[in-house]
């Protein structure tokens, strides 16, 4: 009579097959999926490029600035870039819907340029990267971050020293 027990259980709980692709699929909250890059927070420290095991992340110097490039078709979704990013500019979403036609394979990349600006203090050419606000007390205000973004590294250091914060 064991089969009756199984029959009743199946009637109550329904089939164990997940409805995908005919319905939504359950996704774990911390699934390491598609990379999301936030250009505003990037400090251009290139730590992600350093730790990327398959070399999916690359920084190139272009005439306009420093180009961040990342290709999902090389990424192994290990999460090291997210772990080592000091400002959470790079993180992994739980999006795993990445199957695509081969013709679209190069659209599976992230290409963002951190532009060059001339330093507002000394006029030198510098990257408009975000300052690293981690560990700074009291924390930067949004206006201060914008101000720092337009400074070259030397002037940034000076500004921080005048502000009295350990950077």
């Amino acid at each position, binding site marked *: 009579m064991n089969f009756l027990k199984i029959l009743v259980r199946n009637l109550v709980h329904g089939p164990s097959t997940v409805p995908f692709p005919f319905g939504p699929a359950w996704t774990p909250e911390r699934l390491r999926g598609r990379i999301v890059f936030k250009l505003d927070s990037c400090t251009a420290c290139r730590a992600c490029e350093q730790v990327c095991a*398959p070399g999916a992340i690359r920084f190139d110097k272009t005439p306009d600035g420093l180009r961040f490039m990342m290709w999902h078709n090389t990424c192994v979704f290990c999460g090291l870039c997210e772990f080592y990013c000091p400002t959470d500019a790079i993180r992994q979403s739980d999006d795993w819907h990445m199957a695509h*036609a081969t013709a679209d394979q190069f659209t599976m990349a992230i290409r963002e340029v951190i532009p060059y600006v001339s330093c507002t203090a000394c006029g030198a050419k510098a990257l408009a990267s975000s300052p690293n606000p981690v560990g700074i007390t009291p924390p930067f205000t949004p206006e201060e971050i914008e101000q720092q973004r337009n400074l070259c590294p030397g002037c940034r250091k000076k500004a921080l020293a005048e502000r009295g914060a350990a950077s």
Partner: protein
Amino acid sequence: MTTLLEKITDQARALAVRSPWIYRINAGSCNGCDVECATTALIPRYDVERLGCQYCGSPRHADIVLITGPLTTRVKEDVLRVFAEIPDPKVTVAVGVCPISGGIFRDGYAVNAPIDKYLPVDINVPGCPPRPQAIIEGIAQAIAIWRERL
């Protein structure tokens, strides 16, 4: 006679469109993607056979090919031979990042990735390994392509 043959062919095509058979080629994979492919097929939780697919043992019966692995030099000739045995029209699905770009083995001395230098690939399923649902999604896209080709 021709009309009868055409009729039979049309009938066969109408039936075949409902059940593409899947064949799996391991082109030097680390076995991660193969485990996920097996999971996709064998475990009732994912059950790819709902789409009408069935894993077949012979390349001559296959309609959709799942390729895993970065095409290592050791298996390259065998993979190309087996691939050539699969009758047209076939749809190729590259499972995992290895066949697409080499993934973690990229630029290795024994690795011939990307695989589309040697074979026509239709669908890419990135992931290391991709989760079973992602493989099902790729197979669903492959079935759509296969229906157009048939």
